[in-house]
């Protein structure tokens, strides 16, 4: 394979967002898969690679009726799918596969078919972070932000905080101290 071989993201799609009590996390992946294939003008017959974090890529492949030549189940938190895209490009370049579905689905609101997030009390997190009530992105990810924003050379306009809101977002703008009508969840 040539190092200049062109590899493209040929299609992309989201499931519906919000409370979806009729879809498991596995169903959500399959729904996203069919929407993304439609966007790309492809079918499952074109697919020979699967990725999925948390849920086994083997189970996802069985569900969809795909026999993959290559799969990746790297599970490293919320950046897993970005990592999967890079791994998929490398796999295609190496000749291991041709067309890869990079999938994820979470039933955070409805908790359907959601594997438990195991938090071992023996892990570094379990011994040295979780006991202090730091347990979720809103009250963990802002810890470095507070220090970062305190640096005089790194003042971010407050408007930046509101820009990461997608068109299907259901929670609305980030709560800030200048919107006191909203219930505060974490400060900052």
């Amino acid at each position, binding site marked *: 394979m040539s190092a200049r071989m062109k590899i493209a993201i040929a299609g992309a799609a989201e499931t519906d967002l919000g409370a979806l009590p009729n879809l498991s996390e596995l169903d959500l992946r399959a729904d996203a898969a069919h929407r993304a294939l439609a966007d790309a003008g492809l079918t499952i017959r074109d697919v020979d690679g699967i990725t999925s974090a948390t849920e086994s890529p083997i189970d996802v492949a069985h569900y969809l009726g795909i026999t993959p030549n290559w799969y990746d189940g790297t599970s490293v938190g919320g950046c897993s799918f970005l990592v999967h895209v890079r791994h998929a490009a490398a796999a295609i370049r190496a000749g291991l596969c041709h067309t890869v579905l990079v999938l994820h689905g979470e039933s955070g609101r409805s908790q359907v078919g959601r594997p438990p997030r195991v938090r071992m009390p023996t892990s570094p997190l379990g011994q040295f972070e979780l006991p202090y009530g730091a347990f979720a992105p809103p*009250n963990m990810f802002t810890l470095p932000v507070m220090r970062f924003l305190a640096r005089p050379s790194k003042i971010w306009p407050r408007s930046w905080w509101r820009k990461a809101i997608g068109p299907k977002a259901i929670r609305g703008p980030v709560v800030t101290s200048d919107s006191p009508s909203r219930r505060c969840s974490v400060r900052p």
Partner: protein
Amino acid sequence: MSAPSAPAKMVPVATPASQPFWDGTQVGELRLQHCTDCGHHFLYPRLSCPSCGSRKTDWVRAAGRGRLYSFVISHMAAPGWQGETPYVIAVVQLEEGPRMLSNLVGVPADPAALVLDMPLEVTFQARGDKMLPLFKPAGAAQ
């Protein structure tokens, strides 16, 4: 069938590598690992120095003094924390070098009372069979 019980706060469970740390908190000492090759102090406990890779490490007692490196005031309750919000999750910069996560006590969970780099000192609070290292403003009563 018993009714599902309310979730409890996380109680740390020691591994062989971290046992000296938790033995220390039990007797009112904050202990750190120290690399006898490069002199680096580190937390959390592990088999080798994260600065130079040496496996020659020992344990030392920290002074228990530090500064407020960063914090969040959490109005969200972690499992077991219902009724205790808001609470302060703090990153403490220890005098010896390592930074550790902890909670602040003896100070209101109010941004007006929390100043970055304010001096802190360790205090200990029971959690299950462990004593957890928490921090309070230096010189403050708990």
